[in-house]
């Protein structure tokens, strides 16, 4: 038995629902007890889908267990077919139904419906959502295409002359992180080098489209967690090669273009890719007649060009971005996004990866390899408490993770951005916001760097240290929004208000003393930060979808060091532990000389330093020893 307060992934059948919902013409019958239909609201609310997810539930209750649930399944399958006329009917079971061993798939098959019935084998007790999604997609593609498999060893038919190279984009799925916009960004990228997008699946595809997958020259595995096994099968069965690089980040996008050039087997594509890559760097030749030796900032719209040239390389090179250099970043999420983020942080932003992990055990190997390259031990865990402890221990200045890591970061007062599912409604923004391609790189720059204070501001504020206007102590209301932040509603009549109202009057849950003493109690009544979508709460439609950063304004408890580094009030917990170091008054005064926006961090670091060395009283010397130890 695993004690879980939070689970990164839902049950296995949730993955199947994500595939069915992503597609058109597919209906899923889920043999499940009453109550399992809660899953619908994740699609209608988090992704704001304007239609119901295409799933029917047998919704059996106790009284149905007395007689035959088999009848329920057959009735439901017939009703689903008659009402929805799907091209394919998938039959699945939730965890409880699996225990009943009703053989729902076989029963539905026996009905002789005039559409293919695909029974799904979804082991609910040993697998989880992401695996379920990949497996469902694989099963569906296999079921549809196996009958059309060519004889083993038969060569691929040659591409018709004059036909542009075609690629399928595989992996984008419902409730996937930015899938909607990544498809657009990658399609545009491929179009810019002369590659046609043939089929996108599962997102938006019909079963009839899947039958045409083998027509493309190669597959692009956009999300390995979802599409890797399918790509491998298509390669084995139809000799279709596949692109393994995921184009998130400048370097990865260039690698992607190079790999596409190879697989497209077209010199035109190779040359177009090379030209595009050249335009994505620092030195960009500006039209004819300019000197190619002079590095100049790239322009996004060069004459005659319709492709997107990213600003990230220039922005990273610009002078105030030196404040990013060496900043500590903790990264956690699904493997695809975590690995991509690590590379961007390390090679394209000049920051330092101090933590790297994933909740997907199936992806442990690539994440471990990457972590090793950064001199780290990978964190492979689905226990959010372990992740939280790792974040606290690594003292990052930026946390990139799922919605859970965002909440942890807020509680610890660390800037953060969401880079991976599971995510909430604000991470499915109204505006176009891909992660992939050169367009995505710029979105990433804005999203991740926004939360960090801009370098010039930092220099200016240093000059005002000790100034009466900027105040030594945190303001009583701490309500000034920080740069680029949005004040989140703490109460109101929307669904957000529901959660806040439900929480009002509740006792703040205090943290245990095993945490750093600087960590704030999370007082639910203060509704810190954006309220994720749940039945009980919906965030207001905020302008910025990501990052959902602590603005400091709603940290009404003002106990935590928020991202502006306001002084951390001593939490009650700090005094309880006998080993807690005490500040000498001279040291306290010295601390005040540190700019208020980093004072919190300095205090935390010094206390941590002292605690680790069993130092009982923090003196001025201790303060500077700690500073030398931690650097910066």
């Amino acid at each position: 038995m695993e004690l879980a307060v939070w689970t990164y992934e839902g049950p296995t059948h949730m993955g199947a629902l994500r595939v069915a919902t992503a597609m058109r013409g597919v209906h899923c019958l889920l043999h499940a007890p009453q109550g399992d239909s809660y899953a619908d609201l994740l699609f209608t609310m988090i992704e704001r889908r304007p239609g119901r997810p295409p799933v029917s539930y047998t919704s059996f209750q106790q009284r149905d267990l007395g007689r035959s649930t088999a009848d329920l399944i057959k009735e439901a399958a017939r009703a689903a077919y008659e009402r929805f006329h799907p091209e394919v009917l998938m039959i699945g079971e939730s965890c409880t139904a699996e225990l009943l061993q009703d053989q729902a798939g076989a029963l539905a098959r026996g009905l002789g419906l005039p559409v293919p019935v695909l029974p799904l084998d979804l082991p609910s007790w040993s697998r989880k959502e992401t695996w379920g999604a990949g497996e469902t997609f694989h099963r569906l593609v296999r079921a549809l295409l196996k009958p059309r498999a060519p004889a083993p060893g038969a060569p691929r038919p040659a591409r018709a002359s004059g036909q542009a190279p075609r690629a399928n984009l595989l992996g984008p799925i419902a409730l996937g992180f930015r899938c909607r916009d990544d498809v657009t960004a990658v399609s545009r990228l491929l179009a810019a080098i002369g590659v046609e997008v043939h089929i996108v699946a599962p997102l938006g595809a019909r079963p009839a489209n899947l039958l045409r997958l083998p027509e493309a020259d190669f597959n692009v595995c956009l999300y390995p967690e979802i599409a890797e096994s399918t790509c491998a099968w298509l390669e084995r069965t139809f000799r279709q090669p596949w692109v393994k690089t995921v184009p998130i980040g400048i370097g990865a996008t260039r690698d992607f273009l190079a790999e596409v050039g190879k697989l497209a087997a077209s010199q035109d594509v190779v040359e177009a890719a090379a030209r595009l890559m050249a335009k994505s760097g620092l030195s960009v030749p500006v039209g004819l007649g300019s000197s190619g030796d002079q590095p100049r900032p790239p322009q996004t719209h060069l004459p005659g060009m319709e492709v997107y040239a990213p600003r990230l390389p220039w922005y990273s090179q610009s002078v105030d971005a030196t404040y990013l250099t060496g900043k500590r970043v903790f990264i956690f999420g699904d493997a695809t996004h975590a690995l991509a983020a690590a590379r961007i942080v390390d090679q394209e932003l000049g920051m330092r990866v101090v933590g790297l992990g994933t909740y997907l055990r199936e992806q442990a190997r690539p994440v471990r390899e990457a972590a090793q390259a950064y001199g780290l031990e990978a964190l492979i865990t689905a226990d959010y408490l372990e992740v939280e402890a790792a974040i606290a221990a690594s003292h990052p200045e930026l946390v990139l993770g799922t919605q859970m890591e965002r909440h942890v970061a807020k509680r610890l007062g660390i800037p953060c951005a969401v880079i991976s599912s599971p995510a909430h409604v604000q991470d499915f923004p109204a505006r176009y916001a891909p992660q992939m391609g050169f367009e995505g790189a710029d979105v990433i720059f804005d999203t991740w760097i926004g939360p960090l204070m801009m370098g010039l501001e930092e220099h200016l504020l240093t000059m005002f240290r000790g100034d009466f206007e900027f105040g030594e102590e945190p303001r009583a209301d701490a309500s000034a929004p920080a740069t680029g932040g949005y004040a989140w509603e703490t109460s109101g009549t929307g669904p957000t208000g529901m959660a806040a109202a439900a929480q009002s009057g509740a006792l703040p849950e205090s943290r245990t003393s095993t945490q750093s003493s600087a960590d704030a109690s999370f007082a639910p009544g203060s509704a810190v930060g954006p309220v994720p979508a749940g039945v009980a709460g919906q965030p207001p439609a905020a302008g910025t979808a990501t990052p959902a950063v602590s603005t400091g304004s709603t940290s009404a408890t003002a106990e935590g060091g928020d991202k502006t580094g306001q002084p951390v009030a001593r939490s009650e917990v700090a005094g309880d532990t006998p080993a807690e170091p005490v500040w000498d008054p001279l040291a306290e005064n010295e601390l005040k000389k540190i700019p208020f926006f980093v004072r919190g961090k300095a205090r935390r670091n010094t206390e941590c330093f002292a605690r680790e060395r069993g130092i009982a009283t923090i003196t001025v010397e201790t303060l500077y020893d700690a500073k030398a130890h931690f650097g910066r």
Partner: protein
Amino acid sequence: MTLASVPVPALAEGRQGGEGLLEASPQPEAAARDFPVACEGGQRQAFCGLAGIVWLHRKLQDAFFLVVGSRTCAHMLQSAAGVMIFAAPRFATAILEERDLAGLADANAELDRVVTRLLERRPDIATLFLVGTCPSEVIKLDLHKAAERLNQAFQTQADANRPGSPNQPSQPIQSQGLSATAATHPTGRPRVLAYSGSGLETTFTQGEDTCLEALVPDLPALPAGESSLLVVGTLADVVEDQFCRLFAELGIGPVHFFPPRSARALPPVGPGTRLLLAQPFLGRTARSLEARGARLLTATFPIGIEGTRGWFDAAARAWGLAEERVAAVLAKPMERARGALARYQEQLRGKRVAFLPDSQLEAPIARFLQQECGMEILVAGVPYFDRRLMAGEIDLLSRPQAGNTDGSFAVVEGGDVDRQLDAVRTARPDLTVCGLGLANPLEAEGLTTKWSIELVFSPIQGFEQAADLAELFARPLTRRARLRF
């Protein structure tokens, strides 16, 4: 075509709804018995009873809810709980694994281990609820037995650690396991209870019913000869406080609320107790309390001005208060409520509303909207309709309304979600009250919705909240009128 004219099957005999097996209940009054409620089968779009944990854990401030189930249960709870999941909430799921499914002996040992670890991390817990789920029931994991076992273990250890006990060791207990937990527990021993929140047994709000039912045996006995008023059903603290003030002014007391704010401060019950239900979904709890001698008062539910008036009237009658007295005390809040409500009546009058089944609150809310706001109720879909508990409401519905020959509306129990949506699309109500799995799809079809779970999480009972309740229905109409695209 109105939803009410959809052909309905004959009333089902002895319908149990989502309640499972029960002892025979006292017969509802004749009017209640004859009130027409159509019953339909089909795919149910409803939460299971686990969802009740979301508000019960906020109400019972020292209780912890340990769901014993699958990842589906954990996932559902965090989807329903939204932001609360991040506040180190007092609920969690013990996720069964394949090893646990293999043999029940293992599962029980695992459960003990999980409970120990939990109580070590949360020594502030006074009451631990083991909450049954669909999987735990299918594998017949007996959580009541587990609760007994754990209570026994805690009791044994508490006895052993009593100062002066011959078993008292000379050194502090270092051992792990249940013993250490009990020894360090600040209040003595944590009490372990079990109830079912499984979708097989409970639909949404019925999860509160089974939880309260589990607490009933532990309620202290009201001394013989004493009387009390027990208000049953979770109310927002602010509403409770308002009601307390009014009961005090009326001279009705002592008044207790069940559930209380602390699981350590359970209200007494006995033959002198009069039960006043604040929520309609508490059939099992009512029967358990009656088995302890309490008497159920027939009343409306405190929704809307007239409903709240009727609710206080029921208590006043039981206390033998004169009508003039009651009228005098309630006059001011009623007048204030009428003034506040008037703001929304114009907007709501004549608008057609349909309820899809969700919480069992549909019928009293529909009654309020029709009688006090002038709305037209196309249908009130309910997951279950308890005739006995609804007797007061039925009575109110049966009274002739000014200008209305028929004060009632169609109540349909259960129902197939796809057929209900068909009916909604045909009838095109001005407002459809439904769950969040259906709201956006209907909005996208141009049908204005009111998301039903807001009615469960908002304070809507009492005079001071009557206008707030109306506003929840006015707002979607206002928005539709305002947006220009």
